[in-house]
């Protein structure tokens, strides 16, 4: 299993992708292959197009050009195998819903509009909540959770989906350091199981210390590869436009 992973198709393969957001072209012909089975971070300054890249790859922002493969397939065929943890701002915070109901949504891609959730689904939901340490919050309304607790719940939803590829958009904003570390442990564990994780992130230090793979963006791709090779002073200066001491 470990050997075959290296020949597995890229977790996220983007070719000549262009996308505009609010009338402004944010991505212009970007190409990148993010390998499977790794914990990969997409980093770069604000407005570098990090979020737009993953949103366009997931069809949440219409792409004007280019094509995308997730796990070697077009999006349509892998929906249930790809989980997405959106930025907190896009979620309706005051929606009347409990933590466990959010995690149950992770089973919807497998059950569609009408099929009932089975006992196996319930067990997956419970296990996912246990894994990220929110089992005791199951009945809590989502608007009474802290930022860290809420983010754990959303990760539990991705786990409950049993996706092979988990994509997260700025998962650690508004999250305390302890939660961040715990969530990173869970993500690392997913990669050890052969799953792929791609996170848009802005904290270079974390990416350097905890991630297996880094993509540095500033409009286009500045560099990608091993975090230590990507986050070099020269590359960072090119991306951020300032001299960064390491």
């Amino acid at each position, binding site marked *: 299993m470990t050997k075959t992973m290296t020949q597995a198709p890229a977790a996220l393969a983007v070719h000549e992708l262009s996308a505009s957001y609010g*009338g402004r*072209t944010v991505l212009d012909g970007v190409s990148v292959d993010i390998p499977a089975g790794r914990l990969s971070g997409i980093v770069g300054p604000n407005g570098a197009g990090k979020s737009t890249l993953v949103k366009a790859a997931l069809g949440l922002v219409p792409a*004007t050009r280019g094509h995308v493969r997730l796990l070697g397939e077009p999006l349509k065929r892998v929906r249930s195998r790809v989980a997405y943890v959106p930025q907190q701002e896009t979620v309706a915070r005051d929606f009347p819903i409990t933590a466990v109901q959010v995690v149950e949504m992770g089973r919807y891609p497998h059950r569609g509009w009408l099929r009932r959730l089975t006992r196996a689904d319930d067990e997956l939901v419970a296990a996912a909540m246990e894994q990220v340490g929110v089992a005791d919050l199951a009945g809590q309304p989502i608007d009474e959770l802290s930022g860290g607790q809420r983010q754990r719940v959303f990760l539990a939803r991705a786990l409950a989906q049993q996706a092979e590829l988990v994509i997260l958009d700025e998962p650690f904003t508004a999250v305390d350091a302890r939660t961040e570390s715990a969530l990173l442990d869970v993500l690392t564990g997913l990669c050890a199981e052969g799953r792929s994780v791609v996170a848009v992130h802005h904290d270079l230090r974390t990416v350097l210390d905890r991630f297996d793979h880094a993509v540095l963006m500033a409009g286009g791709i500045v560099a990608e590869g091993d975090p230590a090779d990507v986050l070099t002073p020269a590359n960072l200066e090119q991306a951020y436009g300032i001299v960064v001491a390491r």
Partner: protein
Amino acid sequence: MIGWLLDALPLSYPDAVVVVGTAVVGFVAGALGPLAVLRQRSMFGDAMSHGTLAGVAVAFLVTGVKVPEVLLLGAAVSAGLAAFAMIGLERAGRLRPDAAIGVVLSTSLALGIVLLTHIGSSGDAQQSGLNEYLVGQAAGIVERDIVLALALGAAALAVVTVGFRLLRSATFDPGFTAVAGVPTWAVDAASTGLLALAVVLGVRTVGAILMVALLVAPVVAARQLTKRLAALVPLSGLFGAVCGAVGGVVSGKAELPAGPVIVLLATALAVLSVVFAPRRGVLARVRRRRVAG
């Protein structure tokens, strides 16, 4: 005071009064409209104009006479109360703006209807005159109304001019203004009061239901043509005035109610501007995308 203007127009005296009246109302609504539109509170105007009904009815019940100024005062008070209810619900009741507007709108409309029914059932023949606040009646404008509208409109514009920089920063960035030492409630109160004034002046002409269009459509039209707030206010006022005047003439000639005609003109102007505006218009954007692609 404005007799010379009415005489100078190539229209019969009653027509001239209607045209000048609708133009003045259109100008005031257009010039004050940015206070609602730029703060994403366009539909505030809708709830406030529905709120006038209850105020008019209460003013009539209390005084028992149909003096325009008294009814106007009642309308202004209740429109202001409706606005503060909405702001209060958003702040204290943790309601989203749209839900707060909806709750206040339906409550004040229900209250207005109950009161008007009560007045109607007490057999007062004059109640038909109150009904015009719901659907508007431009033909009822008299010279005294114009003078009143001019005076109040001038006062409102003076406030806008004096407090321009404050309103601009509060509209653009409420948080910053609050930090800078101006309490948000004060700005809210001022802009709400001004909006209530515009609503009250317009509501008898175009009616409570359509009033919101008179606040919003000229602003949308002007917004496409200028980026600067200092130009937006007079331009939007001008658009409102033109739609009011032309609508007044057309409705008089075609024997149609003035409110809907004015609203359709203003909407047409807004749509034209949205499609054809040189820089921000839809066509210009499509063309730019073609060139870029």
